[in-house]
Every structure is written in structure tokens, then in C-alpha cells.
């Protein structure tokens, strides 16, 4: 079948089973947009800014596991998209980003709306392509989707000059793809699995530490089975929340900079650590010199480069998290080695002592709305079953700490790059993927402003997202660091001249509700979620002075946590910390 390059783009998307494309048109992409006009199989969602297109596709991918697709024009279309591409790259999210480019004969001429797209995106993509010949287009599309959603997933950019989209060729979409230099591992090495099993069975103070890889791999079930089979405590990273249900008795909560006391202390004291799909990020490990000094570490990861990057590992295991955990379970099914139940029992007693410190406790108030309280009520009202997206800062940490995620793919946030502005557009992608589901965007007044234009997109496509704005009139996390580390010099962290969010929401055709009293929080949430076909912007006026606890200062160890101040306002005694 003879098609133009533009038609090939659209037809490839159909053949790839793509249902949604997030984009914004412009000169170099116009042939492709014209090809979209005359078909209904692939739905195009028009955003209001290219950054939002990438975050929306990203949210869609995180909520479904499918590849998110973006279409933007050359030049500023691309540069606006870069933040979202880097966001997806840091969190290993499968996306294909199609970018218009100036015609091939103008490339390198500083043509109108020309940038070196392949050059600009190179450090923040899994791979990228510039298609110079229409005959390569279909095969390149196939490769892009294959690379994006295999191995360690990631964003792939396909840059298509305008003349290539006008040229014609005979189209057939390749059924298979083989790339000689790319063969991601799936199954793990059997000998390594046996070594891991033997370490785990003999552990006296074990911990299982899992990250986003378990969610990406769809290995939550295998993880839960393993945790129950071994009876080991388990902690999740910010990216890994929901892989083990938050109400599971073996779950210690999140670890890391704002992790729970029990999770971080267990990491510090453990003798055997099983890390799965996690990358020992600095926000997780704190000071590497003080990291788990007595631990023998088993590390399962699909990316060999993640293993041994930051900490040295006793048993490296390269493979898909789900496949490797299944192999491990299989070995455990056939072992005759008995676990040291006495030691495990003592370990759990120790953990329960740490739990007793109630590191996520906070001072309730009848006067002023505590942000933690709002998140807890959000859990209650949505029965813990909502998709929760967030922006970046204090509200993100509170959502992670207090929502209580019981299923994977429900917690959607920019963990690696920490991109403010992510929350609302990613919620659009989630809501489009799951039209009937409750979708909440937990945000702050500083973050939400960064992509506020997307309220217009939400109106156009009737996306009934619930925006939970924890409005403390500060860039809260910046203010917190300035309070702790800069002697309360609140340099440029105060949000002045804020809009009236209720009016703002209503000007976009949505409902806005301001909530100022703790007693009104639950009612407002119930009210909002009862409006099934309406976006509701809930503006919670919260305590300006609230800080995120516990906290490990950058460069400190897991045993050097700062817990919340005691009721008399004094800091907890040092001996309580270690």
C-alpha cells in the first residue's frame, strides 16, 4: 500500500495498537496532523503546552504499563517537551516521542523552528532516531516501540523531517524486530538465584528493599508471595510504593530521606538485603559510607549498569524482576534449609520497637488544616483505591507517606527528576486511561501553577480529576530546608500574589472549593468525589509551618534521622535517634 510518511506514522501507531497520542501541532508536524484528521482509530489529545503532552503520556504509561505516545513539532515544540522526556527517562517510563523536524535540505541551516533534536535529547532518552528516508520510517517506528518498552524501559525520540512525511513509499509494518546490539536479559542466572536463596534462608536480620522496577515489571504478586514465604520485612522506595500493600503486616513503609524510622533503621541494621528493581539512589541511601554497614546485598535488576553502581553487591542478578522472583520462589519451594526463626523473631521484636516510635505521628489540630490529615482523609474517602498523582515537594512526601497505596501503578509521581508541574498533566493521562477511576492530583500552590494551563485541556476532554491543593503559601520543601539549613532565611520561597484558585478553576469551567477548617475537610472531599463528571479544584488552606518528618539530612546515614519535635517543641534526644 503506497502511503505518505505522515500516513505511515499514523498507520504505524494503529498497527502498534496505540489508542492515545498527546500532542500539539506546528509547522513541521502539519503533514502528520493532516493524516490524523481523516481517521478515528488513534485518538489525539490536544494539550496546551508540550511539557504537558509528555507528562500526560507518562502518566498514561505509568498507570497502564503501555507505551505513552507524544507528537510535537520541531524547535520550541521539542525544547518544551524535554523536561517531560527527562522525567520519563529518570523513572524508566516507556514513551515514544514523535517530533517534527525541518525538511532535510534545511537541517543545519538554522532554519525557522530548527533545533538539533537528536542532540538536545540524547542525554535523556534511551535512544533516538533521525529518519532521513521515508523507506526507513516504518521500521524505525517498530524499533522505537520495541526499545521503549523492553528491558529497562525509557523514552525514545523519533525525529521526522517534514519532507520525509510528504514522500511516499510502499508501507508494510514489520512483524518482528531484531537489533543486533540490543538483547535485554529476561531470566536470571540459575546459580545466582541459588546463592541468593541460600543467603536469604540463613539471614538473621533480613530486609527486602524494592523500587520502581517491581512496579514496571508487574511483579507485585511475586514480591508479596516472597515476602510471605520468607516472613521478611519489606520496604519500598518512593517509586516502588504499592508493590507490597501498605497495610501488609510485613510492610515497613517507605525508606530514605523521608522514610519511616523502622524502614531506615532496619536498612541500617540488616545483615542480608534483597534489593529488587531499585537503584540505590542518593535520596534512598543517604551517606554511602554509613549505608547498611553489615549487610550482604543481593541485587536484582534488569539493567546491569544499576548493579554495583553505588554500593558493592554480594550477589548480582541481572534479569526481569518478575522472572527472577519467580525463579527464586521456585528454589525456595524445593529447599530443605530451615530458616532461623528465633533470630527472625528477635528481629521483628526489634522492628516493632522502632515502629513504636510512630515516626509518622503528627500533632492533630482543630484550628488549622494539617496537610497529613487531608491525605489520610483522601485515603478514607476514596477507600484507598484512587490513582494519586503528585507534583514535587512536601505534598509529594505527605502523599507518599500517608495515602497508603495497596496496589501497584496507583502512585504516580516524578521520583528521579523531581519535576514540578508533573501532577496535573500526568493525572490527565491516568484519567484518559481509566475513565471511570477516581484520580486525585495531590499538589501544592507552587507546583500546580507550573502547568495550570492544562485546566483547559481537562475541560475540553471532560476529565473529572480531583485536584487536592495543599496550599501553604510557601514552596514548602524549599522553606523547610531554609528553616533547617539556612537559619530561617526564607529566600524567595514565599508564594506572593497567588490567584484565587476557586475563581481560577471556575474561569476554566470547573468547580472550585476552598476549605479552611479541619472539620470541613472530609465533607469537601466527599462532595468533590461525588461529582463524577466534574473536575473539582479543592484548595485546602493548610498549616504554613508544617514540616515533613522524619528526615535524613543529605549526607547523613540511615541511623541519623531527625524525628518530629516532641510536644514541648524540643528535638528528640540524640540517643533516641540511633
Amino acid at each position, binding site marked *: 500500500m503506497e502511503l505518505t510518511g505522515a500516513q505511515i506514522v499514523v498507520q504505524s501507531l494503529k498497527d502498534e495498537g496505540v489508542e492515545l497520542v498527546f500532542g500539539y501541532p506546528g509547522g513541521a508536524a502539519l503533514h502528520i496532523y493532516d493524516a490524523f484528521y481523516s481517521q478515528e482509530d488513534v485518538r489525539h489529545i490536544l494539550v496546551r503546552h508540550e511539557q504537558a503532552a509528555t507528562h500526560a503520556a507518562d502518566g498514561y504509561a505509568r498507570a497502564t504499563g503501555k507505551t505513552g505516545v507524544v507528537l510535537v513539532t520541531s524547535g520550541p515544540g521539542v525544547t518544551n517537551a524535554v523536561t517531560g522526556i527527562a522525567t520519563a527517562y529518570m523513572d524508566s517510563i516507556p514513551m515514544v516521542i514523535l517530533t517534527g523536524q525541518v525538511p532535510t535540505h534545511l537541517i543545519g541551516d538554522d532554519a525557522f523552528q530548527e533545533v538539533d533534536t537528536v542532540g538536545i535529547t*540524547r542525554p535523556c532518552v534511551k535512544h533516538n532516531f533521525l529518519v532521513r528516508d521515508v523507506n526507513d520510517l516504518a521500521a524505525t517506528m517498530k524499533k522505537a516501540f520495541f*526499545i521503549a518498552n523492553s528491558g529497562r524501559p525509557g523514552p525514545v525520540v523519533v525525529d521526522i523531517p517534514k519532507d520525509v512525511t510528504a514522500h511516499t513509499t510502499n508501507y508494510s509494518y514489520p512483524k518482528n524486530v531484531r537489533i543486533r*546490539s*540490543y538483547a535485554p536479559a529476561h531470566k536470571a542466572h540459575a546459580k545466582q538465584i541459588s546463592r541468593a536463596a541460600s543467603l536469604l534462608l540463613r539471614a538473621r536480620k533480613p530486609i527486602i528493599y524494592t523500587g520502581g522496577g517491581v512496579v514496571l515489571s508487574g511483579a507485585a504478586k511475586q514480591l508479596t508471595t516472597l515476602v510471605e514465604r520468607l516472613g521478611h520485612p519489606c520496604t519500598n522506595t518512593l517509586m516502588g510504593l504499592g508493590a507490597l500493600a501498605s497495610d501488609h503486616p510485613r510492610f515497613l513503609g517507605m525508606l530514605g530521606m523521608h522514610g519511616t524510622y523502622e524502614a531506615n533503621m532496619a536498612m541500617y541494621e540488616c545483615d542480608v538485603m534483597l534489593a529488587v528493581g531499585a537503584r540505590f539512589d542518593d535520596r534512598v541511601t543517604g551517606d554511602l559510607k554509613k549505608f547498611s554497614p553489615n549487610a550482604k546485598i543481593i541485587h536484582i535488576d534488569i539493567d546491569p*549498569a544499576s548493579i554495583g553502581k553505588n554500593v558493592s553487591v554480594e550477589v548480582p542478578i541481572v534479569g526481569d524482576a518478575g522472572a527472577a522472583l519467580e525463579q527464586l520462589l521456585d528454589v525456595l519451594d524445593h529447599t530443605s534449609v530451615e530458616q532461623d526463626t528465633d533470630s527472625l523473631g528477635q528481629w521483628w521484636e526489634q522492628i516493632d520497637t522502632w515502629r513504636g516510635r510512630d515516626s509518622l505521628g503528627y500533632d492533630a489540630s482543630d484550628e488549622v488544616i494539617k496537610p497529613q490529615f487531608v491525605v489520610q482523609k483522601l485515603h478514607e474517602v476514596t477507600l484507598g483505591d484512587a490513582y494519586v498523582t503528585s507534583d514535587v515537594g512536601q505534598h509529594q512526601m505527605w502523599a507518599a507517606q500517608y495515602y497508603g497505596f495497596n496496589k501497584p501503578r496507583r502512585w504516580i509521581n516524578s521520583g528521579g527528576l523531581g519535576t514540578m508541574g508533573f501532577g496535573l498533566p500526568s493525572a490527565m493521562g491516568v484519567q484518559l486511561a481509566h475513565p471511570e477511576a477516581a484520580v486525585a492530583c495531590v499538589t501544592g500552590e507552587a507546583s500546580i501553577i507550573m502547568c495550570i494551563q492544562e485546566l483547559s485541556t481537562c475541560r475540553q476532554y471532560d476529565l473529572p480529576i480531583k485536584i487536592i491543593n495543599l496550599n501553604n503559601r510557601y514552596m514548602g520543601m524549599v522553606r523547610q530546608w531554609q528553616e533547617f539549613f539556612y537559619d530561617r532565611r526564607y529566600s524567595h520561597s514565599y508564594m506572593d500574589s497567588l490567584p484565587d484558585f476557586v475563581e481560577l478553576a471556575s474561569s476554566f469551567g470547573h468547580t472550585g472549593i476552598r476549605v479552611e477548617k479541619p472539620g470541613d475537610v472530609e465533607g469537601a472531599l466527599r462532595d468533590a468525589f461525588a461529582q463524577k463528571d466534574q473536575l473539582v479544584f479543592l484548595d485546602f488552606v493548610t498549616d504554613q509551618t508544617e514540616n515533613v518528618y522524619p528526615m535524613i539530612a543529605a549526607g547523613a546515614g540511615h541511623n541519623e534521622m531527625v524525628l518530629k519535635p516532641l510536644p514541648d517543641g524540643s528535638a528528640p534526644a540524640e540517643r533516641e535517634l540511633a
Partner: protein
Amino acid sequence: MRRIISLLVENEPGALSRIAGLFSARGYNIESLTVAPTDDDSLSRMTIVTHGSEQIIEQITKQLNKLIDVVRLMDLTEGRHIERELMLLKVAAEGVAREEIKRLVDIFRGRIIDVDGETYTIELTGPGDKLDAFLAAMPAADILEVVRSGVSGIARGERSLRL
């Protein structure tokens, strides 16, 4: 520790900048980098000389292997190998120095490939440290210009880097 890493990479535009970009973005150092086509049109051979701890070198090889354009990789320094580098240099050669420089070139098995009244142009091949030694032996004031190709290398014996 000094390492010589040999790569077969897709002979495509962008492959070189992906590799160079990886080194600069992750703060790895490059002492030299050479690249040229091979007998297989679809492949280029690249030799990178780098320094780093065991752990850094492991990361470098893993990160390079992750690049889609990298088809095969071998750390030559892990086994017996031969390294060669070509150096061209122009030196001032007048009066008594002319004989002296010629003797030095002979000692290092180099060749004088161009001559005029005031200068010699010298070609010298060998491992990097031999070229370093030659430069150290030459009076610095006489050296007018130095061009080094960067190291190329190949494993000894049966070990070979191919598809």
C-alpha cells in the same frame, strides 16, 4: 588504572557523539579516542583510553554496553594485547642538532619523513609510553608541533573483537 577499551559500533551518524556524551555526562575521563571504519561497512572500530578505579571502569563498560549503537566491547587491558599510536612531530633541526636528532630518531626506531633547511618532520609509532619517552628525550625548545593519533589496540592470540 589505565584501560584500553575497544568497541565495535554501528557506523551511523550520532554514534560517536553518544559515546563522547556518555563520558562527559558521567564525568569519566578520556585520554584518547580513535575511530575509523572496519572491513565491515556497517561497523566502526573505536579505541578509548581511560583512567579510573575498578568500579568506575566497570561502570564505563556497562554504560557503554547499554548504548544501542555499541555492538561489541572488549577491555583489551584484561588480557595480553598490543597497543600502537602514531606520532608526527616537527622539530627545529639546525647545525649540530641535526645529527643528534637523527640519532635519537634511530634509537626510537622512528623515521624522518620530511626535511628542510631548518626542520625535520618525524614519524614515530609505538605504545603511548614510548612516544612519551621520545618527547621527554627531545629538548622541549626544539619541538615545533606534535600530532598524536591516539591509541589503537588489538588483543594478542585468538582473542578477537568481532561479530
